[in-house]
């Protein structure tokens, strides 16, 4: 086998990019068919194919790195740039929803009763479950950092305990938010308050689920000895993402839950 004279990774031809694009087509057109024609088949096919592509694509990356050794320091540098840029793009995504919230809440229109929260809206008590959720996410930030230190110090048992705790805290947050959504006295259809509240916290909740899943995959890989004290970028990427999710929640809590109540 001829060896390369550079430290980059020339990947094997892969079907996942094009199939992922097709899956995105199915998901978006599936949403259209579901919204307008009450037909969920295309959406289900889309979501299923998206899951399949994601599973196989990331499985292949684990194979290329842990089992084939293709992730040189140069490749890892590229992955770091990539993850940092992705998280930055997500920050801009949330920025838009915060913009929408402040646009409506800083100058409430007469239709809302000239006040924020609008007339008729009974906001959630920020000192109740939302405060607990804040504590949960802050604690999970501590546990994920503990896990990281354990990995770099080659302390397997502690790393597994800390990462498990992090994942459990993430799921606890999601469960509590789901309960809050169910019990809330207002809905997404309740004017601009409902829209801004549920779209901003809803997308955040989706990111918590994504982050928890990422951390869960890292836990499985940690148990299977994939990470070394010096090379564990998958875990670091998950930890960065998790800290980002935590920071977004802090902004949500302070602006929408607390100031907005």
């Amino acid at each position, binding site marked *: 086998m001829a060896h390369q004279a550079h*430290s980059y990774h020339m990947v094997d031809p892969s*079907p996942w990019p094009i199939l992922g694009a*097709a899956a995105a087509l*199915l998901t978006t057109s599936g949403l259209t068919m579901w919204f307008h024609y009450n037909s969920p088949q295309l959406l289900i096919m*889309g979501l*299923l194919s998206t899951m399949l592509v994601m599973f196989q694509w990331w499985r292949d990356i684990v194979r290329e790195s842990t089992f084939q050794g293709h992730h040189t*320091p140069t490749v890892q540098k590229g992955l770091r740039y990539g993850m940092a840029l992705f998280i930055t793009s997500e920050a801009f995504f949330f920025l838009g929803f915060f913009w929408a919230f402040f646009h409506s809440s800083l100058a409430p229109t007469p239709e809302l009763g000239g006040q924020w929260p609008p007339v008729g809206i009974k906001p959630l008590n920020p000192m109740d479950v939302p405060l607990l959720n804040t504590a949960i996410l802050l604690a999970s930030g501590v546990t994920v950092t503990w896990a990281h230190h354990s990995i770099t110090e*080659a302390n397997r048992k502690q790393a597994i305990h800390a990462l498990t705790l992090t994942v459990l805290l993430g799921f606890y947050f999601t469960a509590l938010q789901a309960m809050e959504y169910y019990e809330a006295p207002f809905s997404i259809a309740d004017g601009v308050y409902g829209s801004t509240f549920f779209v901003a916290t809803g997308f955040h909740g989706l990111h918590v689920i994504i982050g928890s899943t990422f951390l869960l995959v890292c836990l499985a890989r940690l148990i*299977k000895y994939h990470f070394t004290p010096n*090379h564990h970028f998958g875990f670091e990427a998950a930890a960065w993402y998790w800290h980002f999710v935590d920071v977004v929640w802090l902004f949500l809590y302070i602006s929408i839950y607390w100031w907005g109540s």
Partner: protein
Amino acid sequence: MYYRFSGFTQRLVGATAAAAYSPQGLKPLVPTIESPDLIFGTSKPAPGLPAADPFLSTNKVPDLQKVFQRSDGLPIHLKLGYPDRMLYRTTMALTIGGTIYCLVALFFASRPKKEK
């Protein structure tokens, strides 16, 4: 001062110690004496104590490394053979079939209503 050969400019350019330690093109595909992956697996528990971790305490990474580095010409997404092929075909069937269904559905959705 460390140097590396820049494939881009075909000259020696300044580099960090890390890049000099892992020279480009000479990173072994199979782990050599270093074998950093085995650090977790090789720490020996104190004699008399049971294995420190109840979960999957055996490190199968070296075996998997051998499997995935076999020179069989298979691309990474089909390297394990049968299970990979089945999953790939299922994904292809769902995606290609779905795309056709999607185009048909969009074709009919874009036509005006036929009743008079």
